[in-house]
Every structure is written in structure tokens, then in C-alpha cells.
């Protein structure tokens, strides 16, 4: 999962040779930020390319002409081209929208003051940002764990518990003004998630129990606990296994009217990304976290309390994952039902990998996932491509990101000189 064992040597060996003209695609890219982005961007590109192959291979139109390949090979390529363009065209318009409609809508708004057309035009874009919001929080949660060498697979369970905690504060308290109720609900969700993260953190620190095993077990406890809560103590009136709706004083305010669900949760997610960045790179705590992640034994000899950092990071990680569920309840759904999450917690592991465990990278990766997921609705409807293709593309992207050597080999990119992120140390250390 992590960097190759001999990467240190290769890196050192490659560093003096990096200043002469760089071969391959890297020749056209300069600057360290661009260098860092190169592999993920190319991975996304190759993922989309192979996704196009899957689209073409499963397209009925292509299959129909393929039988007559020898008679009309050109027709096959035309059909493939049409299928891919149609699919990705729908994905593009479904996730970003039509620029022309946006301009038209803006003109109408300026001329008549009627914002209907404009809102309709920006709906896909705002919907993508809304979909990206929980991904940002959950991706930060996993990335923070990676920085400390911890593999938090429990983000999914923490997401559920956080959502339930926020919903509980949201519906059970009434009469509070929004400026008190909303922070309280956010805190409730974060705290619930933090508890769910702290338990495996403590078990690891105190008893050496591996966090991978424990977070998975905590997931199952969270799922079954939420099943029970939704059919018992937290069930709304009526027969449906859902919580009551939160009071509107606890809701994250939306920027526009229905059906646009874009809300302050997105802003909060960006703020939180900055906070995590600041914590990791501008504070002593962050330095200790990174030191433990890089080499726990070395950190210990340097006088850093490794055990305390494990608990701290798992708690913060749980709180962030809890906030992902919180933002979804308070901003988008306003209630929690069975199967509330669409696997945000699991996707966020991939996200953190794609974002190289850097808060900015996580935000960018989350936006990518948000746009893919959101655009998939339109692709499914207009191009008839099952929504699962998005999961395939995501999976392909992750494979290429997790195997940067493959992308470097494909595009002839030299091994970077910059420090690479330690993702996890794996088992038994």
C-alpha cells in the first residue's frame, strides 16, 4: 500500500540527476507543486481513458456494430466514439453544467431580475460541491491518520455515529436560537465521531491492538447500533425507520432556494481543511504527529509521547469523520435513515491516497469524487450508463495513484525529489 521499501535510495540517487532536462511529460511541467500534482492528474486521466474503454465495451450500440467488424471497421470506431462522447458529455454537463445556459441565465437575471434560469444553470455545479462536502471531511479524517502512520478504516462507522449524534442534538432540543443550536449540533456530531475514533486509538495505545482490526469492528458496531436506534429510541413517529427531522435552527443554512442544496457545510469543510493544514505544518503538535508517522521509534527517542499522539490523532480523525456525517445531516438531508451513507468512509481512504494525505490534495480529490458522483446521475439517465461506472473509474484512478511507479513508467516521469508522504507503516511495527 505504501511507498516501495527502497524508495529512499532511489530518491537520493535520482536527486542529482533531476536538474538536467527532464524526460517524458515532466519536461513540460515545472515547479514543485505542479510536479506533485502530475502523478495524480495523469492517474485521473488514465482512469478516465480506461473508463471510456469500459463504457464502449458495455455499450449496446457498439456491441451491435461490432459483429460486423470486418465489414465496417470504421463504423465500430464511430460507435465507440459516440458512446464515449455521449457518456462523458453527460457526465460533464451533469457535474458542471452548460456554460451557455449559465451565461444566458445571468443575462436574464441582469435584465429582468428573474433568477430561475440562472439557478437552474448552476444547479449541477452546486450539487457537485454539495456532494464533495462530506468527502472533504472524511478524506481529511483518513489523511490525518495517515500522517501519524495510522490506518483509520473506521471513517464509515464514525460517519454514521456522527450523523446520528448531530441528528439527535438537532431534533431533540427545541427553542434554542440558531446561533446556539447549530454549533451545538455540530459539536454533538463531532463528539460522537470522536468517541468512535478514540476507542480504537486508546486500544492501540494502551494494549497495542491494531487499529485496522479495531476500526473495522467499530464499523460493525456502528451499523448495527444505528439499525437499532432507527427502529427504536431514535425512530420518528410513524412506521418508517428514520429519525425525526432536525429543527431548522440546527440546519446549516443554504445559499439558494430549493432544489439547490448548496450550504455552509462546504465552507466549513474548506475551513476545516485549512485548520488541519495549520495543525499539521504550523504547530508543535503537528510536528510530533508527523514525526510519529515518519518513524515512531525515532520520535520516541526524541522525547515525543507516541502513545498520546496515537490517541489524539484517532480522536481528531473520528471527529472529522463525524463532521462528515454531521454536515450531510444538517446541510442536505435533515434526517437519518437506514443506509444513510453511500460508503463515504470507505471512499475517503482512496481520497486520502489520491490527495497524498495533504489537506489541499484531499480537497482537490474530494472535489473530483464529488463531481464524478454528482454527474453520474445525468450520465445514468441521458446516456444509459449504469452509475457503477463511476465506481470503476474511481477504482482505476486509485490503482494508478497507489502505484505511482506505474504512472511514472507510462509517462516517463523521473522519481520526484520532494519528500514523499508516509502513508502507513503496515502491520506489526
Amino acid at each position, binding site marked *: 500500500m505504501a511507498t516501495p521499501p527502497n524508495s529512499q535510495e532511489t530518491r537520493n540517487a535520482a536527486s542529482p540527476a533531476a536538474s538536467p532536462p527532464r524526460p517524458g511529460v515532466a519536461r513540460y511541467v515545472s515547479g514543485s507543486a505542479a510536479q506533485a500534482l502530475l502523478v495524480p492528474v495523469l492517474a485521473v486521466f488514465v482512469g478516465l481513458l480506461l473508463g471510456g474503454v469500459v463504457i464502449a465495451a458495455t455499450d449496446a450500440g457498439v456491441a451491435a456494430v461490432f459483429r460486423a467488424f470486418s465489414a465496417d471497421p470504421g463504423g465500430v470506431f464511430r460507435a465507440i466514439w459516440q458512446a464515449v462522447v455521449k457518456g462523458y458529455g453527460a457526465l460533464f454537463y451533469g457535474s458542471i453544467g452548460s456554460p451557455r445556459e449559465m451565461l444566458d441565465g445571468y443575462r436574464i437575471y441582469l435584465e429582468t431580475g428573474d433568477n430561475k434560469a440562472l439557478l437552474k444553470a448552476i444547479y449541477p455545479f452546486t450539487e457537485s460541491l454539495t456532494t464533495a462536502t462530506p468527502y472533504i471531511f472524511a478524506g481529511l479524517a483518513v489523511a490525518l491518520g495517515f500522517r501519524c502512520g495510522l490506518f483509520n478504516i473506521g471513517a464509515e462507522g464514525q460517519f454514521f455515529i456522527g450523523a446520528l449524534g448531530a441528528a439527535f442534538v438537532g431534533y431533540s432540543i427545541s427553542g434554542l436560537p440558531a446561533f446556539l443550536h447549530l454549533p451545538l449540533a455540530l459539536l454533538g456530531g463531532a463528539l460522537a465521531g470522536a468517541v468512535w475514533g478514540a476507542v480504537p486509538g486508546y486500544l492501540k495505545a494502551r494494549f497495542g491492538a491494531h487499529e485496522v482490526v479495531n476500526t473495522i469492528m467499530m464499523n460493525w458496531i456502528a451499523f448495527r447500533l444505528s439499525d437499532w436506534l432507527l427502529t427504536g429510541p431514535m425512530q420518528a413517529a*410513524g412506521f418508517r425507520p428514520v429519525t425525526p427531522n432536525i429543527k431548522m435552527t440546527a440546519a446549516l443554512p443554504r445559499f439558494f432556494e430549493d*432544489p439547490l442544496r448548496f450550504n455552509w457545510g462546504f465552507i466549513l469543510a474548506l475551513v476545516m481543511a485549512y485548520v488541519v493544514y495549520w495543525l499539521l505544518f504550523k504547530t508543535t503538535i503537528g510536528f510530533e504527529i508527523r514525526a510519529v508517522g515518519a518513524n515512531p521509534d525515532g520520535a520516541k527517542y526524541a522525547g515525543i509521547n507516541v502513545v498520546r499522539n496515537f490517541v489524539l490523532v484517532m480522536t481528531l480523525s473520528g471527529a472529522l469523520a463525524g463532521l462528515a456525517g454531521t454536515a*450531510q445531516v444538517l446541510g442536505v438531508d435533515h434526517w437519518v435513515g437506514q*443506509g444513510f451513507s453511500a460508503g463515504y468512509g470507505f471512499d475517503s481512504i482512496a481520497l486520502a491516497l489520491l490527495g497524498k494525505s495533504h489537506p489541499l490534495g484531499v480537497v482537490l480529490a474530494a472535489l473530483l469524487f464529488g463531481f464524478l458522483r454528482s454527474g453520474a446521475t445525468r450520465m*445514468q439517465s441521458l446516456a444509459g450508463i449504469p*452509475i457503477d461506472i463511476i465506481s470503476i473509474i474511481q477504482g482505476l484512478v486509485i490503482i494508478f495513484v497507489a502505484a505511482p511507479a506505474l504512472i511514472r513508467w507510462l*509517462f516517463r516521469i523521473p522519481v520526484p525529489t520532494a519528500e514523499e508522504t508516509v502513508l502507513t507503516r503496515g502491520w506489526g511495527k
Partner: protein
Amino acid sequence: MKKLFAVLSMLVILSLALSACAPRPTPTPPPTQPPAPTKPPAPTQPPAPTQPPAPTEAPPPLIGQVTDMGGIDDKSFNASAWKGIQDAMKEFAIQGKYLESQQQADYTKNIQQYIDEGAALIVTVGFLLGVDTAKFAIANPDLKFAIVDYTYPDCWPGAEVGVQCGADKELPNVRGLIFQTDQAAFLAGYLAAGMTKTGVVATYGGIKIPPVTIFMKGFEAGVKYYNQQKGANVRLLGWETARDEGTFTGNFESTDDGRRLAESFMQEGADIILPVAGPVGLGSAAVCKETKACLVIGVDADWYDTAPEYREVLLTSVLKKIDVAVYSTIKDLLEGKFSGGTRVYAIADGGVDIAPYHEFEDDVPAELKAEIDAIRKALIDGSLTVDGVLSGQ
């Protein structure tokens, strides 16, 4: 090799970039596809048809289904509703599509997508979409909706409309499709009571919600009626209407739970089981097949077709014909006869029934068959009711 690759990759990038500037694909249909979508696509092709409309004609009406989180191939109500749309596509010039919901935030998004596309009818599946469907229906009075297993008004005194429930009155543009499955389950209960060798039959549910418990209630009534008529004493495990209590797995997924429950019911002597929990019931069927000591009764669809591996232990199935309901809703729409409100599908109109006995055709005594046919008639003409039997009249 390096250069070749560089050239190739640049070509790919360029072609992609250029395609973005190229004009949209021509509106004429590709030559390989039928020009006017009067014919449905090959039945082996589950995704929505994608024939572009002929440029001069108005596009055929769009019928869009929004699934719940079970997905389109849940072998239960989503699949059944989609079959109804597919059947309609074979008969009429319509365009049928479905959108799968992967999380609850997708419900409103998927409905919104169909509204943007100008759908003629939006079919939402399951009670979890109840509130959202009503919200959109009220906001878009010109649009038509059908919702499976749900009906309006769904509000109770003091409930906040649009938040806790969908509507406090019937909606003229929403048709709620509900099923009197208790009538069909009544027949199954009577049959089970007549066929049991141990004198004990059993049922269990997925989650305790009305669309599930209605099966169990009807089954109980059927067993009770058999006991009344024959002076028998067949016992039912797993549900009791008087106490409103029964056995539930708590989910609609775990076939292991189905195995476990079937085993414990068998230990208590049951030899016929009605599982009302979707695919969970297949676990019970597997136990029966292995031990050859029990029979199961399928639900929703005829398991003889959907679970052919368990034919040898399948006594019958309690049919809930969602496909028929969706099909007839589409037919009404096209004939201009669509109306809102609640449409109850009962045994009288064939919306619910029990499946043929298939492999047990010879095992079920002719006398019992005749009695069941008589009960079916009595249920149709109303001289016999499930509630009447349960309340002891």
C-alpha cells in the same frame, strides 16, 4: 519506444481536447438503431434505452423510475416495478428509464433529474421516498407521480407537513400503489395449515413495517380460519396480531439470518415457513432443501421463476404484482385516464394472489384446492375478510 509513446499520448490528449470543441453529435439517429423507438430494446439489455428521438417527431413520453437503496436488481419491489415499465415499453411508444439511488440524498436529486428532462410519469419505489415524492408533487402540480407501497394522506395529527410526512390530503397528481397482500397470504396460510404434517407453521419478517406485517397478518388469519373450519389446532410461530408482536431479522440482506431462523423454527416443530424479508428468505429455502424437513412459501414474485434452485421445497408464493400495478398506471396515463389518490390492488383484480403449486400440484389434495378456490371467491365478494377472521367473527 519513448517517442512513440509520447506521440501516441499527445494524440489521445489532442483528440480529447478537440472533441470538446467539436459540434455536438448530430441529432439524426445512428444507422444501426431503429429510427423511431416504437420497439423496446432487446430484453437482455437492462439499462435504459438510449435511442435518440427522430428529429421531426416529438419524443415519446418518458417514464422514469427512482429506486430506493436496494437498487434495480433487488429481486424485489424495485425489480418488479421496473418489469412493469419494461412490459409497458413493449406495448406502447414510451421511453422508460431508471435511476438508482445509492444514498438517501439521491432521492430528491434523481426526481429533480426527471423533472428537468420533462418526464411524463415518475415512479418512486418505497416508503423512504414518501415525503420527497409528495414535496415534488405539490411543487409541480402538472407532473404525474406513482409511488409503490405508499399512500397519502400520510400525516398524523400534529405532524409537520413536508417534514415528518408528505401530505395531509390525497394528492391529485400522485397515485399511491398499495397491495392487499393479506388476502393472498390468507390463502397461503390456509394452504400451509392444510399441508403441514407437524401441525406447526411459521413466518418471520424483515423489519416491522406495515408492508411486511400485512403478509404475516394474512397468513395468521388463514391458519386461524383453517382451524375454525376443520376444528384443527395448527399452531403459528413468528407472528401474533393481537399482541402486535413477531419475529424479525432486522434487515433485508442477511441470508444467514434466514438460515438461523428456519433452523430454530424447525426445532420448534415447524415444517412450513413464510419468510417476508426479501432475499433473506432464500437462506431458509436453502436449509429446507438441505434437510428436506420443511417447505417455504415465496413472497412478492413467484420464486419458481426467480429462485429456480429451490423449486423442490417451494409450496407456493404470495404474489404482489407491482409490475401489473405500474403497467396499468402507465396505460391509464397514456389513455388519459390517470388519476391520483390511492389505488389498492387486491385479490379481486388479480393484483395479489398465490402462485400455482408447480411441483406440489399432485401433493396438494384436490379437496384443499377446491376449498382455497372457494375462499378466493369469498374474499373477492367480501363475504370473508382477513380482519373479520382475526377479530373472531
